[in-house]
């Protein structure tokens, strides 16, 4: 009965977003005289907006097809989005994030979603500046923030934000909390310290070369003294300003009776500086200002990179707070008043319209609706809520208006609790330096004992030289290479993986990924996409696939149901007199014709036929029927699809010797289907979160090293319990904060890269540690016997450090994964 009209196999890709163009559609945009195919009207509208603003260079500059599929379609924004944007023109809402400057100009910072490369930045900046009334727009590629200045007489913030929507991005107001501001300050301070140390190091090194040359071929005393004094002047700010964090950390560690790497670093830097200063003043002995400044600079670089890795997770926290709407409709004396969400108080009554975000935790007093809690739980199907049910701030009301009584506001809401959890995760010092720290305790003890023995021995032999030889022992054994060995390797590998889509938030990940034996996947949202997408369209009779898609999209345009999202990108028309039957489907008028979409029984009743699921083209997936008053028009199959690249990933992981299992709470036939398709033998279905945790713990007790990959709230216990846990980028924030790493791009193939690179990292750390220890073992006896001149110590130290850093830099490239046949 149904036939696929356009059965020709096109493997065309959308010019704008790079996704496959669905069979049977022909959306075309005219790009500089060439007709380019588009996958949906959304991409078409965005591409046309870009071209008509004369910004077609965007397509030339961008890297890859990673541009996201626009959520919206058509040149007109849906009314719900328009209403929402209008709220941002309200002065009481603006006061949180907009600064008013002189002559009516205003400035705001927005966080932009959807930025993938420098071409996006270029496109946004140029598009925004072309809007009337916009004076200045600069977009930061690193933190995805846009600073926009506009004239409030000529334009409004809502129209600027609409302009951002039109080219396929989304803007949200950015208001940094205190912690965020502190982080920025800390970062700037660290960078200034690094700069002072770098400049100081270069100058001191220049002076030192004169001194080295003087030591070899003779130098007049007055010049030597003068050069020493200038070195002292330059090295002083480096020690007092740049090296300060080491001293404060060392004092803290000594107070808490715990020897960390900061202690030998401080002893080496501090004693070398003091001895050199003494040598300069008394015009005796040797100076080590070059070693002091260089060591400080090298270590600060390592610290700075490590800090940057830690701060990256800060962005996730900001994104989370964006969930809370900036405004709420409060019912006051039977009047609806729009107020900023921050002014809500407990026991206030608020109205939440369909499609709006719930402003704070509350209890429903009137109304019946379904609520999309995916932000909190990852479950994409809305949950039905009725009077006396609790709803959580940040989740979205889907179907009909609700009145709530607020029960928790501000810091007491569930969402804020999640944010606090994230804060705790950030405070936790990354375990990056821990391996080196445990080595450090022994090392410090060994160095201090050796130095004591050396000074006592030399005191017996030659009291005049004892001090200088002891000092050279301390400087030579200065644990520069040793303290750089692990952090540089981990920093390089972490940075490389972040660039390729895996964000590591805890230090042990690289180590435990390298030794993993089992990889366990969750199903929904991990191996599969975790949302319904349109899998197949079968037009009935002689109908054109594109036209039936447009009718379906027009009907679904008014719905907030997840099913509607699958159709959203095809929307070009709108339907009227909409009517929805809860759990059945939708009915609406387009032009003069009445249509129904939904369950087969419901839809076919319109044309006096009786069709059921058994009449669908096949029995896999969820089929929807579209009917007019005359006849059935088309079947649509909606399904949760397997993620792209999963097949390849699993076969590479198997070849790497890892055992793959699937652990899911799902109990439907889909479990076996997914397992069969991906040929996973070991499947544990129908498990509760406790079962999942118990299963993993049992595996781990048997000696397995487990990597767990999941996304939902139900995965959180197991993510916390597994030795290594990775959350998908689309996962709930709570899952992300509990995981040790996040696959930002949700590109599952990156897992294999991570495993390969973590194995390489382990071998490089071992090489580095071996080298550093070997260097110290050779240098120590030589220094103890008094054979090492200061310039030799400096050269030896820098060469050994450079070898360690150079070796670690080999990790900035991914290990090649061999293609699978």
């Amino acid at each position: 009965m149904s036939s696929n009209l356009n059965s020709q196999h096109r493997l065309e890709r959308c010019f704008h977003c790079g996704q496959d163009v669905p069979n049977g559609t022909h959306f075309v945009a005219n790009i500089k005289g060439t007709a380019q195919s588009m996958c949906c009207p959304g991409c078409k509208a965005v591409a046309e907006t870009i071209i008509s603003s004369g910004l077609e260079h965007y397509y030339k500059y961008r890297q890859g097809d990673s541009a996201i599929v626009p959520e919206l379609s058509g040149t007109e924004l849906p009314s719900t989005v328009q209403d929402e944007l209008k709220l941002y023109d309200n002065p009481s809402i603006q006061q949180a994030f907009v600064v008013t400057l002189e002559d009516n100009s205003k400035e705001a910072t927005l966080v932009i979603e959807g930025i993938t490369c420098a071409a996006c930045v270029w496109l946004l900046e140029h598009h925004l500046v072309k809007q009337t009334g916009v004076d200045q727009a600069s977009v930061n590629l690193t933190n995805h923030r846009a600073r926009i200045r506009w004239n409030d007489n000529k334009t409004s913030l809502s129209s600027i934000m609409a302009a951002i929507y039109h080219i396929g991005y989304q803007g949200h107001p950015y208001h940094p909390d205190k912690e965020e501001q502190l982080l920025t300050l800390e970062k700037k301070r660290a960078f200034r310290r690094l700069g002072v140390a770098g400049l100081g190091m270069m100058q001191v090194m220049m002076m030192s070369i004169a001194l080295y040359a003087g030591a070899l071929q003779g130098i007049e005393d007055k010049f030597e003294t003068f050069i020493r004094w200038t070195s002292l002047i330059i090295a002083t700010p480096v020690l007092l300003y740049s090296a300060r964090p080491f001293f404060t950390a060392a004092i803290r560690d000594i107070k808490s009776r715990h020897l960390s790497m900061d202690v030998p670093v401080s002893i080496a830097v501090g004693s070398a500086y003091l001895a050199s200063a003494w040598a300069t003043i008394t015009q005796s002995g040797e100076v080590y200002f070059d070693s002091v400044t260089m060591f400080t600079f090298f270590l600060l670089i390592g610290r700075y990179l490590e800090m940057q890795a830690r701060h990256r997770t800060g962005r996730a926290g900001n994104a989370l707070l964006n969930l809370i709407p900036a405004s709420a409709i409060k019912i006051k004396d039977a009047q609806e008043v729009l107020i900023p969400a921050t002014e809500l108080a407990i026991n206030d009554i608020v109205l939440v319209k369909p499609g709006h975000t719930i402003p704070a935790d509350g209890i429903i007093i009137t109304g019946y609706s379904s609520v999309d809690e995916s932000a909190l739980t990852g479950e994409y199907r809305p949950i039905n809520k009725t009077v006396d049910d609790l709803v959580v701030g940040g989740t979205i009301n889907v179907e009909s208006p609700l009145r709530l009584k607020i029960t928790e506001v501000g810091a007491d809401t569930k969402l804020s609790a999640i944010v606090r959890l994230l804060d705790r995760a950030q405070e936790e010092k990354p375990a990056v330096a821990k391996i080196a720290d445990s080595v450090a305790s022994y090392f410090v003890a060994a160095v201090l004992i050796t130095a004591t023995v050396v000074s006592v021995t030399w005191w017996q032999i030659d009291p005049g030289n004892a001090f200088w030889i002891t000092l050279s022992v301390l400087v030579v054994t200065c644990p520069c290479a040793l303290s750089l060995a692990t952090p540089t390797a981990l920093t390089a590998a972490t940075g490389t993986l972040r660039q390729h889509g895996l964000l590591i938030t805890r230090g042990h990940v690289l180590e435990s990924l390298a030794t993993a034996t089992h990889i366990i996947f969750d199903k929904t949202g991990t191996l599969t996409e975790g949302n319904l997408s349109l899998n197949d369209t079968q037009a009935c009779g002689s109908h054109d696939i594109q036209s039936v898609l447009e009718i379906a999209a027009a009907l679904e345009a008014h719905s907030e149901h997840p099913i509607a999202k699958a159709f959203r990108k095809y929307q070009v028309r709108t339907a009227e007199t909409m009517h929805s039957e809860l759990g059945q489907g939708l009915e609406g008028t387009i032009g003069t014709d009445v249509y129904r979409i939904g369950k087969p029984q419901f839809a076919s009743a319109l044309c006096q036929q009786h069709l059921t699921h058994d009449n669908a083209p096949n029995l896999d997936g969820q089929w929807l029927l579209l009917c007019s008053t005359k006849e059935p028009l088309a079947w649509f199959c909606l399904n949760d699809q397997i993620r792209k690249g999963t097949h390849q990933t699993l076969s590479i992981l198997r070849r790497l010797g890892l055992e793959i299992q699937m652990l899911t709470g799902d109990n439907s036939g889909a479990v076996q289907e997914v397992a069969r398709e991906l040929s996973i033998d070991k499947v544990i279905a129908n498990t509760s979160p406790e079962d999942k945790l118990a299963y993993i713990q049992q595996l781990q007790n048997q000696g397995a090293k487990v990597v767990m990959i999941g996304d939902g709230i139900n995965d959180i216990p197991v993510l916390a319990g597994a030795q290594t846990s990775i959350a998908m980028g689309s996962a709930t924030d709570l899952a992300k904060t509990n995981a040790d790493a996040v696959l930002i791009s949700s590109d599952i193939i990156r897992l294999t890269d991570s495993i390969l690179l973590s194995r390489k990292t382990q071998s490089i750390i071992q090489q580095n540690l071996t080298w550093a220890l070997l260097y110290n073992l050779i240098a120590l006896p030589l220094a103890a016997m008094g054979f090492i001149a200061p310039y030799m110590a400096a050269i030896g130290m820098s060469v050994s450090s450079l070898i360690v850093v150079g070796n670690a830099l080999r990790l900035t490239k991914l290990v090649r994964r061999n293609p699978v046949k």
Partner: protein
Amino acid sequence: MEILFVLIPIAIILLGFAIWAFFWSVNTGQYDDLDSPAHSILFDDDDDLIPDDAKQEKVTTTRD
């Protein structure tokens, strides 16, 4: 070589100036975005700055 007694202090003064300039640039946010300026130099969006008679025949824009 007595000139060193003049040149080295001058070098230190210049160093002080360099540190001041560095602090100024960090504090005014010059280092906030280190990624996009590196790419923006490659975007030839200066069509309107090129005189018409100097323009070359342009190849139709295609991807990649």
